[in-house]
């Protein structure tokens, strides 16, 4: 078992692939180094006219044989090295996602979706780069440099080698200096492009305002500014990038120039042969690319190092909501889940330094009873749902008990398996309707799914779709209306046959008529279960056994619908207003 946060461990698993790949790479390079040597021999043979037809044919055959062998070993080495690195990539991505599944909501509040996604794609991609192309480049560079230089010095001429190599360090310098500079400017180009996209998006989505306030001409001017800026930043990149390749070409050509002039003089003074000279040029050609890759490898490595650190930071993140008891019910827990919920002097804040979202909440919901929660946006209603689901743990004072046991001491799986949760935003996944409703560890049968869908008044609409329950939702599929989404989301909670049902403002997107129908259908279902209904509309909660009015994290009014109306306070006020407004809407 490898240490989860140590990425190197995942690579070591594939060490034999790398060893095999290394052998093949050495073989390829040896073969490659042979080629100039053979051409050199041919040249000398031709020069001294010591070759004959048969010998010439023989050399040609060797060249082809070498290239065939290179071909095979090339293919096999790719399979080994790229295979290892792609497996590494695949495994680490799985590990990352599995780890994210364990992290609590707090983590996801701290980290942006886009950044987490970048970890699993871009950062992992730069690791894949260094473990495959980087590995190949490094090996090739090392072998080619060492062997070519050895041959050049040993068999051709050390001084010629030395002089011709003089420009090469500049090549490395240019690569390492220019690479990051180009990257930086390129990033600015990308940023400026997203500015452009943002400006355009704002304009298009706000086109009504633009037109209504006759802002078209100003918008054109503003766009011209962003457009010009984008142009300028692009040209900044062009100015730098445009010089890059000509410069590299210049430097490597200088090497050839030196080889030509100095080498030519050496031939003339008979210190080397023409064949040596041709072979030398061949080696120089072979060596230029590895020298350039030294710069590339350095850039790769820097990026990979940063990526590795970022990924390891994610994997080192400790999940903070975990089971403190084994999954099977312990002695303190009854076999049956009853669904009694009790808040005892509970005060809660999402952040230790942040403001309290709930203050001194005392609340008991007996099994089978229904609690209604009403209050302004931000009054803490959804937080109550989040706490019962244990998406957050209470940090401050107070306790939350489920069936008399502290919530942190019940098994997470057992708790959540017994809760049916209908979230505020009706989050659905772009999968089939069947998968969206049958959203539980053990997939329910289609019959069970349809039963839940009929209670939430959506079965009929689904059966009217061409693919019925196999209809795919989301961007590449069917888009349901807000009300339909809510009903699917309700069915998703019902199909689990939970002991506790939490409805977080889930009926706001359906009209009052449908709301009534759904609540009527739900009634028998709710009677056997502990229910919490969080709502904006009084009509959703007026039948609850108890209603609490939350304001700024405190319970300011509590009682039954009738009791609250008599109080003639906040609850009564919103009731009256909503009644009228709804009637106007449906007139």
């Amino acid at each position, binding site marked *: 078992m490898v240490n989860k946060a140590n990425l190197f461990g995942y690579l070591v698993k594939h060490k034999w692939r790398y060893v095999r790949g290394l052998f093949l790479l050495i073989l390829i390079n040896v073969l490659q180094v042979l080629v100039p040597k053979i051409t050199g021999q041919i040249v000398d043979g031709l020069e001294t*006219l010591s070759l*004959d037809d048969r010998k*010439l044919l023989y050399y*040609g055959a060797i*060249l*082809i044989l070498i290239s065939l062998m290179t*071909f095979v070993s*090339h*293919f096999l080495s790719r399979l080994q090295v790229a295979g290892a690195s*792609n*497996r590494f990539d*695949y495994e680490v991505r*799985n590990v990352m996602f599995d780890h*994210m*599944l364990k992290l*609590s*909501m707090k983590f*996801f509040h701290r980290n942006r*979706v886009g950044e*987490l996604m970048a970890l*699993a*794609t871009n950062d992992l991609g730069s690791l894949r780069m260094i473990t495959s192309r980087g590995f190949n480049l490094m090996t090739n560079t090392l072998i080619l440099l060492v062997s070519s230089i050895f041959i050049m010095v040993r068999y051709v001429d050390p001084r010629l080698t030395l002089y011709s190599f003089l420009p090469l360090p500049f090549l490395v310098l240019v690569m390492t200096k220019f690479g990051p500079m180009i990257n930086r400017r390129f990033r600015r180009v990308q940023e400026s492009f997203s500015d452009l996209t943002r400006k*355009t998006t704002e304009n*298009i989505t706000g*086109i*009504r*305002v633009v037109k*209504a*306030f006759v802002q078209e001409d*100003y*918008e*054109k001017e503003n766009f*011209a500014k962003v*457009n*010009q800026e984008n*142009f300028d930043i*692009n040209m900044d990149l*062009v100015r730098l990038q*445009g010089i890059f390749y000509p*410069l590299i*070409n*210049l430097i490597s050509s200088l090497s050839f120039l030196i080889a*030509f002039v100095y080498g*030519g003089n050496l031939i*003339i*003074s008979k210190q080397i042969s*023409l064949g040596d000279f041709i072979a030398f040029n061949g080696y120089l050609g072979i060596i230029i690319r590895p020298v350039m890759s030294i710069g590339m490898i350095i850039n790769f490595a820097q990026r990979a190092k940063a990526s590795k650190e970022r990924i390891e930071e994610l994997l080192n993140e400790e999940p903070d909501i975990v089971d403190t008891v084994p999954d099977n019910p312990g002695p303190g827990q009854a076999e049956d889940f009853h669904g009694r919920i009790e808040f005892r002097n509970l005060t809660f804040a999402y952040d230790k330094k942040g403001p309290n979202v709930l203050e001194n909440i005392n609340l008991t919901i007996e099994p089978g009873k229904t609690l209604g929660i009403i209050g302004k*946006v931000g009054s803490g209603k959804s937080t109550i749902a989040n706490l019962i*689901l244990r*998406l957050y743990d209470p940090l401050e004072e107070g306790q939350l008990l489920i069936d008399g046991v502290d919530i942190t001491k019940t098994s997470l799986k057992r708790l*959540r*398996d017994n*809760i049916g949760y209908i*979230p505020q935003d009706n989050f659905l996944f772009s999968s089939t309707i069947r998968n969206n409703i049958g959203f*539980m*560890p053990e997939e329910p049968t289609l019959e069970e799914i349809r039963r839940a869908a009929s209670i939430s008044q959506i079965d009929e609409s689904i059966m009217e779709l061409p693919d019925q329950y196999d209809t795919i939702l989301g961007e590449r599929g069917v888009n349901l209306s807000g009300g339909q989404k809510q009903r699917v989301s309700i069915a998703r909670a019902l199909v689990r046959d939970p002991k506790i049902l939490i409805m977080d403002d889930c009926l706001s997107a359906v009209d009052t008529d449908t709301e009534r129908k759904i609540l009527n259908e739900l009634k028998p279902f709710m009677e056997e279960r502990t229910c919490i209904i969080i709502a904006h509309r009084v009509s959703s909660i007026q039948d609850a056994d108890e209603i609490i009015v939350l304001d700024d994290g405190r319970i300011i009014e509590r009682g039954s619908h009738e009791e609250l109306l008599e109080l003639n306070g906040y609850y009564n006020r919103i009731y009256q207003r909503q009644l009228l*407004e709804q*009637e*106007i809407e*449906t007139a």
Partner: protein
Amino acid sequence: MDDRGKNQDRVYDRKLVWRMLEFAKPYWHYFVISLLLIFTITGASLARPYLTKVGIDKYINGVVKSTMSVEEARQGIWTLGIMFLVLIIVEFILGYLQRYLLELTGKKIIYNIREKIFNHVQHLPLSFFDKMAAGRVVTRVTNDPETINELFSGVLVGFIRSMVEMIAIIIVMFRLSSRLTMVSFMVLPLIVVATIIFRRTARKVWQRIRTKLAEINAFLAEHIAGMGIIQAFNMQNRKAQEFDKVNKEYFEAHMKSVKVFGIFRPFMDVVETLGMALLLWYGGRSILAGALEFGTLYMFVDYLGRFYWPIRELTEQFNTLQNSIVSAERVFNLLDQEVEPRIEGTIPDYDNMVGEIEFKNVWFAYIDENWVLKDISFKIKPGESAAFVGATGAGKTSIINLLCGFYEHQRGEILIDGVDIRDIGKEKLRRNIGLVLQDVSLFSGDIATNIKLFEPDISREEVVRAAKHVHAHEFISKLYGAYDHEIGEGGTTLSVGQRQLISFARALIRDPKILVMDEATSHVDTETEELIQDALINLMKGRTTIAVAHRLSTIQNADKIILIHKGRIREMGNHQELLSKRGLYYNLYRLQYDPEYKVS
């Protein structure tokens, strides 16, 4: 049948390409200079192997064969060396110039296309935006111009360069030795075919990798955003399995590419070596027979290596061409959309608007004859207010849309101060209307900019005065930087109520004669609600107001309440009149004061 369709496509493509060339037309001389530079550079780089050949054949072999003195040869080599140096420096300078010039031209073209599209979009009617998703319009402005430009800076120049390079090499080779040239090109068909097949396969493989990567991205985006739901429903294990599936497909796509590239690229090397071996063998025999100079053979080897590059590039350019044609088609499609009619009015100086509004038997449909408004007639005197009440989809918002000239009504007349709004012209009409929308669009920028928008004549004092008038000043001055406070992307830092107050200020600052308001339905907290109601009273003072109303206070205080049902006016009158009618409005009203009262 099919063939004819293809032919038509080709003619169509050609037309498109001609139309695309219009964008490049202002810069044609840049392209010519760029091409001239390319030719010079190509010439310079082709001269290099020639120098080597001269060095070997004339000087080195001259010494070897003792036809030349060592000193002379040395001198010659040095001269060649200096020419070599001049060549590479020229190559460097011209290479940079050429790249710079070409890119500069390309970016200018992109700039122009973008500007053209954006400016055109500004004048498209709202009905266009109903049909087309915002994201797609944005892509037309941002991405498509870059793809179109590829035709100029990538394909056009690249194509000519590749062709010139290839032809130049062929000519030089033929002039040196036609036999050797034939031998060198024996493997050429094999290379061309292999390259084309490889490009095609490679493109498919890359496409698959990109698709799978996009799937991984979509999966992660969705599941990280829905992590709470996954955990609340104990779906971690099933989701991990689902991810494994997507991830594995991505892995497999990569492995496929490893195989494709692993076979094709080394294969090309084999073919190239084969060509080289042929050349060496044949050339070697010629040298042995004394029919060929060694330097010539050496040069051939060099040229042959250079010949493979343009071939590779040509196949690449063909794909690019196709992509830019697709983009161009989309862009032209958008540019061909008709702009809003009647921006300018027919009445030259219609300035002193009083604000009397009259609808006379107005019929309106968004599509065909699906009437949304049927025979709507009403009249609102200057300074009066009208509240439209009715169910969602009854047609309330459509009335606002028509009054602002966002859509064209099919029958009847809409008159302001007795003048048809079509004669007033959209610009003038809208300058006199203050519009407050349900969904407040905020732009990135500071608060002041969001109130005055980009009107340069509005001073800071006026902004503050307007904000104070609608009670927005209080919360704005509490923000960091007050009126200079930057609003983030989409303006998420402000609450719904605060956004509404800003939109009030935005309308008020222009001191419009007519106020048009689509009241927000979303509930805000009580304190803000009171502020909003108070601000509304200030806002409506002295203006003709038309409101799609949800708030009871707005409705009760309106001079005219108009109840709309299924596109028709059902009841009209002020609060008292409607109550005495004992109709629908009466029912609604009684509900509040009589808990026992049930709507019959």
